[in-house]
């Protein structure tokens, strides 16, 4: 299943929008097993949204399933960097919670 993120605009920078995208990805995973995210027209993403969407998915799926089931296409290097940062922050937050 492919989700074309263009329909949400060129900037992903809204908490409610992040929730909508996350829900759509989760539904796609349930129905198709994997999801291709097309970032063709997306120019930027807030760090908050990267953590909200991809941090959560990474923690839920684990590194292997995340790689196998979440496919990124037309992603700029800046956006993939933001996504990596969001995931890293989620991992360190979850480690802090386990430690505490």
């Amino acid at each position, binding site marked *: 299943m492919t989700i074309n993120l263009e329909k949400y605009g060129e900037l992903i920078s809204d908490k409610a929008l992040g929730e909508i995208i996350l829900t759509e990805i989760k539904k796609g995973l349930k129905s198709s097993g994997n999801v291709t995210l097309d970032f063709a027209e997306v120019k930027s993403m807030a760090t908050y949204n990267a953590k909200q969407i991809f941090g959560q998915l990474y923690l839920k799926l684990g590194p292997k399933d995340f790689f196998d089931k979440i496919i990124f296409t037309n992603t700029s290097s*800046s956006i993939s960097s933001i996504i990596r940062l969001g995931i*890293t922050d989620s991992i360190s937050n979850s480690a802090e919670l386990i430690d505490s």
Partner: protein
Amino acid sequence: MIYSLPKHFNHNYIDKFLNQFGHFLKIKKAHEPGFTMDCTAINNVSVVGMLLTYKFMEFTFSNSRFLSPTFQTDIYFEKFITKYGFEDLLSSIVKGLSENKRNKIFSSLDVKSGENFIIAPYPMNREKIMSYVDFQKRYIDKITEYYKGSSATEMIFPCISEILLNFWEHATKDNQSILVAEGNKNKIEIACADTGEGILGTMIKGRPYLTKGKNDIEILELAMKKDITSKINTNHMGRGLWVLNEFAKKTNGTFYVFSQGVGLCTKFGRTTYFKSGFWPGSIIYINLPLNNIVTMNDVLREDLSLIPSIKLNLT
């Protein structure tokens, strides 16, 4: 008493403006008589000057700070009011129109694009006067069109993204946080201001142990550090202000933050912190030259080298 605005009200005057007017924003008493703001000496106002004039008026009127205040304007100042799209908003405050009526004015504002482009006041409020999709159509599409063929948006959009998400999320107790911007082919200025709780207040409330025993300047320094957020155990990463400051440093741009009596200024790649006049909430201002485009990748380069190998399935 008459308080005059200067000939040139731009980002270089913010600190002086707060020193001159900030004490009126610490609500001690209401209905103070004899206040006059004289705007007739002004020759030039930038977008941040207009924003602060508006927010000052909005705050003092809605809190009945003055008894029958007077705002003296002239044809020059009114020209700037119109240019930046504040005409109806200012008159709605003076007429005492309800917030609902003012919200209708906001939803009718737009981007002006000519030699420069101007983002008319955009309210980042929690009730969402304007839907996010509408915002994209009105603003982002037009900025993309204006900078067609240039990589400027690689720098502008990450800044707007961080401001939009972090600013209205943190600007509690003020549902009229306003974003404005003005740009041309050489530079872009983005400013936003609210009169809500402010950075110090949210840091002290959200991170009591971290801020305990620290003075106001130290708390602002803490808020600027990467990975320090006032909202722990949320999706906030404490990167919003840090990212903006890094863009300013790496481009030799200018970045100002003012909140509750303290401020920071980044110029020529250096950041300084100082005591300032009072502002109840936060003012964020960034001015980026567009001759040296820096991307989010450049800003995050050092972090990414430290990030463990997180594999993304990129096709």
